[in-house]
């Protein structure tokens, strides 16, 4: 599933970045969105976009359009 399909409090393991856009891909990687990493969706902004995730021990916000490009495997709450 994709990152934007998570609800607050849910998380998953990053599988891959779908984006064809090399620049976006690179920026996401630089920010710690790498394969095998666990992330948690922390919050959705009051107007529905962007979202906030926790990854690599820090908080990152990104728009849903970018979140759609991140494929993840959902994890059980206990595993987070």
């Amino acid at each position: 599933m994709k990152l934007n399909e998570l609800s607050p409090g849910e998380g998953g393991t990053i599988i891959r970045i779908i984006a064809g856009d090399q620049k976006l891909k690179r920026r996401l990687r630089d920010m710690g969105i790498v394969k095998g990493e666990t992330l948690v969706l922390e919050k959705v902004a009051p107007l529905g976009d962007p979202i906030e995730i926790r990854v690599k021990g820090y908080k990152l916000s990104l728009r849903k359009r970018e979140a759609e490009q991140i494929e993840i495997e959902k994890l059980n709450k206990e595993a987070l």
Partner: protein
Amino acid sequence: MKELIIAFAGNPNVGKTALINSLSGAKLKIGNWPGVTVEKKEAELTYNGVKIKLVDLPGIYSLSPYTIEEKIARDFLLEEKIDAIINVIDATNLERNLYLTSQLLDLEIPTVIALNMWDEFEDKGYRLDIEKFEQAINAKVITTVATKGKGVNKLLKAIISTSEKQNKPNFLKLSQKIEESIEELINYIPEDFQLPKRWTALKLLEKDEYFYERMEKKDLLGKLPREEIIDDVRKRLEKYFGEDIGTLIPEERYGGVNSIVKNVLRRPVERKRELTEILDSIFLNRMLGIPIFLLLLYLVFLFTFNGSGPFIDWTDGFINGYIGKWTGIILSKSPPWLTSLIVDGIIGGVGLVLSFVPLMFFLYFFLALLEESGYMARVAFVMDKLMKGIGLHGKSFVPMVIGFGCNVPAIYATRALEDEKARKITALLIPYMSCGARLPIYALFTAVFFRHGQAGVVLSLYVFGIAVAVIVGLILKKAVFKGKAEEFLMELPPYRVPTLKMIWSSMWLRTRAFVIKAGTIIFITMIFLWALINIPYGAPPEKTILGVTARTIAPIFKPAGFGDKWQAVAALIPGTIAKEAVVGALGQAYGAGEEEEGKEEKSSFWEDSIDQIKGFFVAIWESLKSLATWKSSIFEMEVEESPLLKKIKNAFTPLSSYSYMVFTLLWIPCIVTLGAIYQEFGWGILGFSILLTTLVPYIASTLVFSIGKFLGF
């Protein structure tokens, strides 16, 4: 004397500036990096007879050249002669910070690691084996608490010894297979190549476009291995890992970081619910997030303008009323034109610049508070969706709202935006926010033509300005600042209590920069305008350069409904000194003169001086008092009955007066705003802004007048 050049590199919000401040005893200087609007901070100090220059590189997450900040940092590190890099790291966020470190180590420049925020790190129960860490990267690691000046002396010693010894750090190893490929490529790079070889090999593998661009510029392409060789190595790698190189290298780097972190870091067993999470559950709350932001913004707006108001009045009175008056008296024997040039032109110009200093101080105080506490990032998060439609950023909302008080600080408030494109668009739209100085104009015209429903008409002008900003924003996004909007990838840093030292340093540095850089251009323009209005000296308004010009060009404004009134056209020019000057200029042009101030009270220089000092303390008291009131005085209007009202009643119709108000609303805000735009963005954007604030008001007021006439007004 020998001079060491030390570059401070690190992620945003890790305390680089605070560290430089502590090291140098707060002797920071700010400017811009050449050619861009990214802030450049530097400081110099002397230690044991060695001169040390500390350069604060922009905060970055990576050396990949996808943002201006990354390019600046990379160019500086590779192309300047640097004696050492101080890599400042937020110890509480080791993993992501070390990702940049792994790239810095590849540059083969002597490096010192400053593990900042060490107190927080220990409080959270983390442990770190510093010795092991130092061995792994062959560089000194110093723990610091920049805000409290802890570890600063040790860091200074490490800087000196590291730059003297010039020992290169170890790089972070990637996996075997990649290291082999790097070795293979290094073999093809000539022995005397100017750039670090491992780094070059990696850039070649990554097909880094910016790297090739720079190589071409330096005529080094010929020295690089042949394209086929690189392609071959890359393809083998991609095949082996089943990943493209753009994915592979960052993942490998994080892998390298992980293995170091695993070796040296011990995490606490239990993760506490941190203060940041508690605060975010309030500030980012789906119901409360926006109302809380609007409330905070209102308070910033209120305190900035109410708090600085009394000081602005005092400064204005001090320069124009006191210095100006007494200079006039001293010069009473010289020709009147010279006195006018000195008093109205020169002293008036200086006064204009200085009267903004209190406003800058207050604005920068609150901006620094929002920035340093970490709240500004939340603003972007909360407001982003609303602003991105017109090519703006969530953070654009703050400068826009400040613009309703005054456009000048609003331009400076765009500093909070990292996205260059969004920052420029925001600055170009700010002049359409109706600032406080435009109110006297509305007050005058609405008092004549819209006695009933005055407030409604004024409100409609505010809305008109916003609507124009939205439309112009859309056009700019589609036509000028084309291309894909930058992605919104933003860290939400932990909330931190800002230190007064940091806030003070930010206020002081930036206000000084305003006075020097913007002040110069404002001052020159002021003298130019003085000449327009006063030459030939003593002539009636219609015979001055301004009057003659206005009478010539007035017909251009026919479609807007005030082409037959050269006085209205002429008044626009003094209006660029400060918008409210339009009212006085109209009075003069219509010969309705303000009643001569005539009865100036006779007082001695001594009495005047004491009055000024008293006045200053009154201003402090008034400022404190106004901070306690919750009502903004900036939206209050007052009009005195005057002969001018009658003249205007005869000259304008309700429709042409509305058209004129629209024009003054959208027209060049004032030369101080222009000075600010020049300081922040340079000539290009300044020219574009002048174009936009000339063309747009003309089109808008023409439309208003034509549509109004068609509808039978």
